[in-house]
C-alpha cells in the first residue's frame, strides 16, 4: 500500500463524508453530490498506482462500458422511474461485491495463502452482496411493473426463508473450515452460497408491496454498503472499508427515516409482506354504489360562487396527465377573484419523494403556497373546497380505519374530509397505487366526482370559473 494512495483514500473518504453532510440540506445538496463524485474520482485514480499495469486496458474497457451504460440510463430515465433506476445501480454494486469476494476466494483457494480474515469475510460479502443484487433486481421489476407486481406470497414463506438462510450459514461455515462439515469442496460450497443467497434475495422482496419499495431499496442500499465494507476487509483496502461502512450505517438510519415518513414500521414491511393490490376485491361493488357525478361547469360554478378558501391536493395523476400548467391557471383564476388558494403536498404523493414539489415549482407555483402534511391539515376545517387532482391514497381516510388492514393502514393522510366540499378530478373510480377504495368517493353530499383526465378536466374547470 503506497503512502500517496493511502493519503488520497483519506481525502476521498473526507469528500464522501462532507458530501453526505451537504446532502442533508436542499441548498447544498447538489454540491454535496458533486463533492462525493470528486471523492470517487480521487479514490479511483489513487487505485491505479497500486495495481499491475498490464491489465489497465481490460479495466479501462470494463469501466468505460459500465460508465456509458450508467450515464445513458441515468440520462434517459423518466423522473417517475428514478426509484427503480436507483435499485438497478444498487443491485450492480451488490453483484460486484459478491463477484469480487468469489474470485478472491477461488484465488486464495487455488493460489493458497488462506487468511483467517478472508475466510470469514468472503462468505459474508457473497451473502450480503448477492441478497442485495437479487433483491434489487426484483425491486426494479416490481416498480417497472414488469413482473411480481403487487405482493407475491406463498404459504410458509417465512419458514422457507429461515431454512434457506440456515443452509447458507452451514455452507459458509463448511467453506471457512475447508470442507470439514459437508462432503462439498470449499469452492463448490461458496458457489452454492452465492446461488442460495440470490434465491434468498428474491424471496425476501417478492412479498413486499410496491408502495414500500422506496424503503426496501434504501435497505438494500445499506446492505450493499455493508458488502463493500466486507470486501474491503477481504482485500485489505481502506477506502472500501470506510466508504462501505459509512454507506451501510447511514443507509440504515435513512431507511428508518423513510419508513417513518411513509408511516410504515420497518418490521411490518419486511415480515408482513402487505398486499399492495387489493384493488380487484374493491372494484366489484363500486358500480352499484352511487356517486355524485358532476361536470366541469358545476364545479366551476361552485368554486366561483360558494368558496373563499380553496385547497388543491395534487397526486400521481397530475404527473401522468402533465396537468401542472392548467392547475397553475386555476390558481391564478381563483386568486383573481379574491379567493385564497393553498396546495397540500403529501410526502408520498406521486411516485417519488418531492415529486409534487418538482412539478409545481416547474409550473411556477410560489413555494409559500405549498404546505406540508402537518401544515395543511389544520387548514381544512375552514376550507370551503378541496380539489383533489389525480390523487387517492394520500387523501384516503381508509388509511386510519382500524378495521381495515390495507397497504396504507397507519399512513398519515391529508384530512380533506374536514373541508366543506371535496372535489375529485380523476378518470374513474379506480383506486390508486395502493389499490384501496376511497369511502369519500361515495359521500354524495360532501363529494363531487369530476370524471376526466386531469389536464382536460382542469382546463374546463378554469373556463367554467371564469364564466360562472
Amino acid at each position: 500500500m503506497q503512502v500517496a494512495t493511502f493519503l488520497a483514500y483519506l481525502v476521498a473518504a473526507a469528500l464522501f463524508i462532507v458530501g453526505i453532510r451537504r446532502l442533508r440540506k436542499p441548498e447544498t445538496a447538489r454540491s454535496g453530490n458533486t463533492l462525493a463524485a470528486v471523492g470517487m474520482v480521487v479514490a479511483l485514480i489513487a487505485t491505479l498506482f497500486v495495481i499491475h499495469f498490464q491489465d489497465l486496458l481490460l479495466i479501462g474497457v470494463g469501466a468505460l462500458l459500465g460508465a456509458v451504460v450508467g450515464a445513458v440510463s441515468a440520462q434517459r430515465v423518466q423522473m417517475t422511474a428514478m426509484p427503480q433506476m436507483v435499485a438497478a445501480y444498487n443491485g450492480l454494486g451488490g453483484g460486484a461485491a459478491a463477484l469480487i469476494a468469489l474470485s478472491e476466494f477461488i484465488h486464495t483457494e487455488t493460489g493458497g495463502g488462506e487468511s483467517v480474515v478472508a475466510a470469514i469475510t468472503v462468505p459474508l460479502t457473497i451473502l450480503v452482496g448477492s441478497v442485495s443484487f437479487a433483491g434489487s433486481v426484483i425491486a426494479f421489476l416490481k416498480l417497472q411493473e414488469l413482473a411480481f407486481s403487487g405482493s407475491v406470497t406463498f404459504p410458509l414463506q417465512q419458514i422457507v426463508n429461515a431454512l434457506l438462510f440456515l443452509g447458507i450459514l452451514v455452507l459458509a461455515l463448511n467453506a471457512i473450515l475447508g470442507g470439514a462439515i459437508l462432503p462439498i469442496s470449499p469452492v463448490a460450497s461458496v458457489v452454492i452460497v452465492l446461488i442460495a443467497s440470490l434465491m434468498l434475495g428474491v424471496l425476501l422482496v417478492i412479498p413486499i408491496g410496491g408502495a414500500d419499495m422506496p424503503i426496501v431499496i434504501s435497505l438494500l442500499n445499506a446492505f450493499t454498503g455493508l458488502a463493500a465494507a466486507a470486501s474491503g476487509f477481504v482485500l485489505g483496502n481502506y477506502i472500501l472499508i470506510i466508504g462501505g461502512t459509512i454507506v451501510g450505517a447511514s443507509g440504515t438510519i435513512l431507511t428508518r427515516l423513510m419508513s417513518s415518513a411513509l408511516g410504515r414500521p420497518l418490521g411490518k414491511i419486511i415480515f408482513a409482506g402487505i398486499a399492495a393490490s387489493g384493488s380487484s376485491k374493491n372494484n366489484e361493488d363500486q358500480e352499484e354504489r352511487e356517486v355524485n357525478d358532476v361536470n366541469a361547469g358545476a364545479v366551476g360554478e361552485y368554486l366561483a360562487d360558494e368558496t373563499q378558501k380553496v385547497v388543491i391536493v395534487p397526486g400521481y395523476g397530475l404527473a401522468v396527465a402533465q396537468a401542472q400548467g392548467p392547475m397553475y391557471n386555476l390558481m391564478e383564476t381563483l386568486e383573481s377573484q379574491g379567493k385564497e388558494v393553498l396546495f397540500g403536498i403529501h410526502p408520498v404523493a406521486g411516485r417519488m419523494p418531492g415529486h409534487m414539489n418538482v412539478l409545481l415549482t416547474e409550473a411556477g407555483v410560489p413555494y409559500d403556497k405549498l404546505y406540508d402534511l402537518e401544515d395543511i391539515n389544520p387548514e381544512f376545517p375552514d376550507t370551503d373546497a378541496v380539489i383533489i387532482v389525480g390523487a387517492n391514497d394520500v387523501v384516503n381516510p381508509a388509511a386510519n380505519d382500524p378495521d381495515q388492514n390495507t397497504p396504507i393502514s397507519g399512513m398519515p393522510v391529508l384530512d380533506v374530509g374536514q373541508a366543506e366540499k371535496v372535489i375529485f378530478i380523476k378518470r374513474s373510480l379506480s383506486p390508486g397505487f395502493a389499490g384501496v377504495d376511497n369511502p369519500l368517493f361515495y359521500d354524495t353530499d360532501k363529494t363531487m366526482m369530476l370524471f376526466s383526465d386531469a389536464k382536460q378536466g382542469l382546463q374546463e374547470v378554469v373556463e367554467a370559473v371564469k364564466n360562472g
Partner: protein
Amino acid sequence: MQILLTQLAIFIIAAFLGFELISRVPNLLHTPLMSATNAIHGVILVGGMITLASAESPIIKAVGFIAVFFGAANVVGGFWVTNRMLGMFRPPVKKVKKRREG
C-alpha cells in the same frame, strides 16, 4: 494482526459516524440522499480493479471484468441520476428554512 485490528477500529468509528451523519433530513431529500450514498458504495469499483489486476486465471479475469463493469455503472449512473434529481428542485432559501424544520 495489528493491521486487522486498526481496520476494525476504523470500521467501528466509521459506523458510528454513519449513524450520526443522517438525522432530520427533509422528505424532499430522502431519495437523493439514498441515491447519492448508493453511488458512493460504487467505490466497490476499486475492489473490482484490484481483483481484475491481480487475476491470473481467465475465469477470475472474466469475473473481475464483470465486477468492474458493474461497479462503473453503479458509480456513474448513481451520481448522474442523483444530480438530475437534485437539478429538478431548486427551492428558494426561505422555503428551504420551512422544510428543514418540518
